[in-house]
């Protein structure tokens, strides 16, 4: 830009607005978080269990997939169902004792379990690479999860190049993620209208009443948690494919709380709202990059803290003035009342 940046305190660089590959990367993050938040919607929005440990399911999905491929020589495609299964079994093992607890205790127990998983990833260095992260050996590219994905990605882009001369390298991932989100929303919405889905809502409204009607509520809550674990594990795969390296810091409690922000923004009790919430949340958060703030006082850490402040304020204001979110219904928000 020819203008002196000092003359405009809030200069907006419009060239970034038309930067396609940037928006595609934002769309990939948004899609990943939409999947995570869909699981939370099923748990928190429709079953009334406040799951603060969703990051653990992502971690188990991503790490199991990568460890099976890199260390056990599994094919990428076989590792995916195995990793989903691992996350779901973990969900069942965790849920069996903890789902009997009161809502607030369950929330605290799940966040502690998620931290145990993350600490394990950080410290079991032989298995997970510890703080170095887990990644493919560049010299031994034959046996690597990113390679299998790259073959698929290339063939998608070969097809796409019929319509778009030079497709972005992340574009296939964007397509696959959002296709998965669409399928997940379709399935979850259908499930919600089955007798099974109605029992979940009954548990959310009044667990004792559901029990009195002869429903084994623990079993239903376990199923809800296992489906959420499955969605979390799939989100973990996409995170791993997007970042190429799997690192314990990608599974901090912050990730779960960001997903809760997505959920709340979209609205309690609306699966489609979650997708819209994910797009809005990440486009606003990443959109702050366009505001070309002068440094000083806007150093890089300050801009990072600004994003954290936006998320915090969003949560506070939504909870104070519109707890049901953008597309939720007030009567769907009954937990703990």
């Amino acid at each position, binding site marked *: 830009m020819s203008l002196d940046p000092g003359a405009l305190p809030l200069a907006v660089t419009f060239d970034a607005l038309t930067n396609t590959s940037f928006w595609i990367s934002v769309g990939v993050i948004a899609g990943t978080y939409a999947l995570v938040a869909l699981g939370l919607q099923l748990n928190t929005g429709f079953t009334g269990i406040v799951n603060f440990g969703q990051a653990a399911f992502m971690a188990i999905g991503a790490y199991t997939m990568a460890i099976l491929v890199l260390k056990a020589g599994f094919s990428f495609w076989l590792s995916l169902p195995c990793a989903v299964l691992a996350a779901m079994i973990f969900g069942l093992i965790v849920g069996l004792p903890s789902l009997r607890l009161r809502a607030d205790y369950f929330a605290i*127990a799940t966040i502690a*379990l998620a*931290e*145990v998983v993350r*600490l394990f990833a950080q410290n079991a260095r032989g298995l997970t690479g510890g703080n170095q992260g887990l990644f493919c050996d560049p010299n031994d590219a034959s046996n690597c999860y990113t390679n299998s994905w790259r073959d698929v990605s290339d063939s998608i882009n070969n097809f796409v190049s019929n319509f778009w001369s030079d497709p972005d390298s992340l574009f296939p991932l964007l397509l696959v993620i959002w296709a998965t989100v669409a399928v997940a929303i379709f399935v979850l919405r259908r499930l919600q209208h089955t007798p099974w889905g109605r029992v979940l809502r009954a548990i959310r409204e009044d667990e004792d009443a559901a029990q009195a009607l002869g429903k084994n509520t623990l079993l239903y809550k376990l199923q809800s948690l296992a489906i959420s674990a499955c969605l979390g594990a799939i989100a973990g795969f996409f995170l791993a494919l997007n970042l190429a390296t799997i690192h314990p810091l990608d599974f901090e409690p912050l990730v779960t709380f960001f997903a809760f922000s997505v959920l709340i923004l979209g609205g309690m009790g609306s699966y489609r709202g979650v997708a819209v919430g994910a797009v809005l949340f990440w486009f606003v958060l990443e959109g702050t990059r366009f505001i070309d703030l002068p440094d000083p006082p806007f150093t890089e*850490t300050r801009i990072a*803290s600004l994003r954290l402040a936006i998320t915090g304020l969003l949560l506070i204001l939504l909870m104070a003035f519109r707890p049901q979110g953008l597309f939720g219904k007030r009567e769907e928000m009954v937990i703990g009342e």
Partner: protein
Amino acid sequence: MEAGQMTEQVAPSVRERLSDRMRRQPWLGAVAVIVAIFLALVAGEGLHDVAQTGLNGLSLGAIYALGAVGLTLVYGILKLVNFAQGDFLTFGAYMAYLVNVTWGMPLILGIFWAMIATALLGLLFERVLWGPMRAKHAGFLQLILMSIGLAFLLRAIIQWFWSTDVRVLDVDTTSTVQFLGLRIGQTQLIVVIVGIAVIIGIGLMLRLTLLGKQMRALSDDLELAETAGINTRRVINYTWIFAGALAGLAGVLSAATTDLRPELGFELLLPIFAAVILGGIGDAFGALAAGMVIGVMTEWSTLVIDARWKTAVGFLVLIIALIVRPQGIFGKAKTV
């Protein structure tokens, strides 16, 4: 396990009497577990190492306990699971940094300022957030998510002013005190003494004064307490003053024994929650005891496993406590 099976074979009546005793005084079970762990460690690692790591554990435990008292009072009285409590600790630590390092004044002034500033912060949020939310009859999920938003906001403000650099307070970290062949850092010793003294003071105050009685009344039933003529607003304000001041103190003590980072409080939050739940929600003495136990267990764990795993101990205690005894070791058996 084996001992239990043996008594069962020899004399079932003893076992019955024991289990009856355990039901009435559940903390006896906890004491038995701790003594068993202590004896096993002494047998395996020698008394000196166990005593030395236990001493280190007391200074960690004092910090957990101070943070836990504030959290447990707010949790018990206002039924608020305050995820921002950890960032109250961070805020207090940076307030002390401001006085002690930026302005170059003695740490004791920094501690007082940290306690006052964090208490004021607690009152401010009660005024603008929690009071109005209670008036709206906000649900549990609404409040918990709001406190997470507040935690983000506080951490963002701290990062804005002090960046993510690791800082230290102006304290003597080299002098040590020796007794009975054990050594403890002078600062750590002060942390242990200050922590225990303050918590015993608070605990006695809660048990003996009218304010303490009123707090317990609110904890039982806020609306009933109000009907009975208790000035609930005043009691709630005092609750936040205690919660804030103690969190500020805990933050400074933690910063004095280690260092300051914007994540300081959040990293302490889960062990603090563990102390709150193990001690029984709303029970200040319980929080003191449980905080100390978790601190000591954390340091003892370094005798048998690598020190990098020690943060997991607090989480495991929390999970086991929730599953085995969610009403806390001092609580009475009731539906939770």
